């Protein structure tokens, strides 16, 4: 049998490096809030002739608008500060002068009033889900000794996953100017659900193995539970990754944030449900915080 629990220091070290990297990325680069959270406008224009987004971006600056341009299905998606109807018209006319006739395909505009409210509610949502999950898991594992530990470890694993996703987005934001929007928050909440879903499967096996009395040593129980659920965890992640990849590759910009959040989140979630949450549980259960760094030695089985 594989000794996963025994390699704990390695896994904790990997997580520590990833977390530290994410936090540094967040502190240095920060996240680019999209219009949903910081107000602004997004105008989608469809030009008759193909227009290079980089050229269009230069022209945008020449017209006196500060902003950024993405391409989606041949259309230009123009991110700017909040535009009035008049400003929008002059923006379109300015670009038309240079690149030929265009049709307005979509327009979104968010005022700071709405943006603030949205950001606040999104923050509350993430916190409420964490609390809800903690309560449910504590209840689901109520027959176990110290049921709160299960919920708390699942929450720590969840925070681990969310921080890594945020870190990757800080980097993507720094390189490609990616912004976080409501789709991003939707993705984060989905990742929360997914991460806990995976962790619960492992915990469920721990619960069962404890009840069956597999071993008096809690670490042995955790280890065998991990090994037994390993192929399930990997296979479920694989099928989920397959559909998420399909979304990333075939739908693109409009759903990109959501799909990429899920992509990173599913990978991080799989990792944390195998290598973070159960290991923490083992350490905490035994109260052996020294084992946190040293790693235990498995003797039985």
């Amino acid at each position: 049998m594989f000794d996963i629990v025994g390699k704990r220091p390695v896994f904790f070290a990997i997580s520590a490096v990833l977390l530290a990297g994410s936090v540094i990325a967040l502190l240095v680069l920060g996240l680019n809030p999209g219009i949903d959270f910081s107000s602004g406008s997004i105008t989608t224009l469809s030009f008759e002739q193909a227009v290079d987004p980089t050229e269009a971006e230069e022209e945008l600056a020449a017209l006196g608008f500060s902003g950024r341009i993405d391409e989606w299905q041949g259309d230009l998606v123009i991110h700017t500060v909040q535009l009035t109807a008049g400003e929008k018209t002059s923006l379109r006319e300015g670009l038309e002068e240079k690149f030929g006739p265009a049709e307005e395909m979509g327009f979104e505009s968010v005022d700071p009033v709405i943006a603030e409210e949205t950001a606040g509610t999104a923050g509350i949502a993430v916190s409420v889900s964490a609390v809800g999950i903690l309560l449910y898991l504590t209840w689901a594992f109520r027959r176990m000794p110290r049921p709160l530990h299960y919920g708390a470890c699942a929450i720590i694993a969840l925070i681990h996953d969310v921080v890594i996703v945020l870190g990757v987005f800080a980097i993507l934001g720094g390189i490609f100017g990616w912004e976080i929007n409501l789709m991003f928050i939707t993705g984060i909440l989905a990742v929360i659900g997914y991460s806990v879903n995976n962790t619960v499967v492992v915990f469920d096996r721990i619960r069962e193995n404890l009840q069956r009395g597999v071993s008096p040593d809690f670490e042995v129980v955790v280890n065998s539970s991990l090994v037994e659920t390993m192929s399930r965890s990997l296979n479920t992640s694989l099928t989920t990754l397959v559909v998420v990849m399909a979304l990333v590759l075939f739908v693109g910009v409009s759903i990109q944030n959501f799909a990429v959040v899920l992509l990173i989140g599913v990978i991080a979630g799989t990792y944390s449900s195998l290598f973070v949450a159960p290991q923490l549980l083992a350490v905490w259960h035994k109260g052996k915080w020294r084992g946190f760094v040293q790693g235990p030695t498995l003797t039985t089985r």
Partner: protein
Amino acid sequence: MLRRNTWVLITIIVVFALALWVLLPIEGERFGRQGIQFGLDLKGGVRLVYQADLSGVTPGTEGEIMDGVLAVIANRINPLGVTEPDFHRRGDDQIVVELPGTDITDIQKERIGRTALLGFREWVQVPVGGEEVEVEVGTEEEASEEGEEPVDSGEEEQAEEGEGDAEEPVDEEEEREPVTIGMWVPAMGTVNGEEKALNSSYFKENTYIDRGQFGEIELHFEWNEEGIELSEQITGRLVVGNQPLGIFEGDQPLLGDDGQPIAPRVQAVITDRGIITGLSMTEATELSKQLNAGRLPVPLTRVGEMTVKPKLGEDFVDLSVRAGLIGIVLVMLFMIAYYRIPGLMASLALVFYGAIVLALFKLLGVTLTLAGIGGFVLSIGMAVDANVLIFERMKEEFRMGRALGAATEAGFNRAWTAIRDSNITTMIVCGILIWVGGSIAFGGSVQGFGVTLLIGVTVSMITAIVATRTLLRLFIGTNLAKQTRLFTIYSGKKNV
């Protein structure tokens, strides 16, 4: 046992057929539901969010006022001919307008939330910096950043009915130090000892459009009693030197057909009635209508907008359908390659799952948004999770020495707590997504995701357990089942 399975199988086939019948044709009507509903982001349309300024309202009457605003907005939307317009209050002081599937112009959008309150302003010189300078009224300084300079286009006029020909206004040139700047300030007058600004709330509700002697479009209005008093004082003051009277809507000058602000020079004292010229026919007609009956009781500011052209939405749908199909096929291939016969059964269950979920979307009237479709596609990947859990468990049980049939049953039974607990946590998150989506101004997409994922998770628990189990039980009864290789179970060898 076999008998019961046969019945369950028949039920499954009937439910599947029923689901297909409900679903197809996609646009068809079933049980009073016409097709699958798409959100604004997919079928195109406009969503506007307005913030009402209730600062000047008597406390306690806010609700009434907002209902009044809604009624006015309804009157303005109805003539647009939108099939299913929706307008409702959001919170205490916001109004949400949704016009699905439409393609309306920016001007039409502006008109929906227009206060239709015209304010009259005069051009005054105000001192810059701390220096005390006498306020000069009616002089034109060189253009300044503050306010617009009155335009002297000569095509606008405002005069008392029956007055003679308008004289060409004479510009006053005055050489002075540039220590003041000109700006438009509301024209004030005194009624009953109270200082009041002149605006269109003093209009009688009988404005009309006419053509002048040169065919120009005229918007005729009459003052009510208070209006007459104010107008007399103000135009009496401005007629000296033919000073301009600016017409504003909110803080924006009212623009004429030529795109220039309308600010006629006062040629005579206006008492009971006047004319506004320079507007286009459509604009004048619309404004007259709104001045007469459709004035909003409080000013609205547009705080959010989402406009999607129907064509853009179609692209989204096509692309996500393609992504979904590719995703489902790849998941099936993986399941069959990895789990063989059980994988095949799980794939059949997945088709069953897809049909039921889509049929439910139609029956429950779920509004599919872009994120909602994303949620459905994601749920395909997660739907097989229950099967993966069960199959892995089956293999374990078989390795522990159980017979195929017993291992299958044990696999289903033992995997149940994991399936239940893991899905309930996902459901908690779905509940939060639905709640958050409902309370955010542009959260329709988020809500759609929560709804589709919730339906997906719930249905997948049933299909993965009931359908797959029945199919497998039936299969185990056949001779083929002796080939345990088909279950990726190789006796004596551990296969992970």
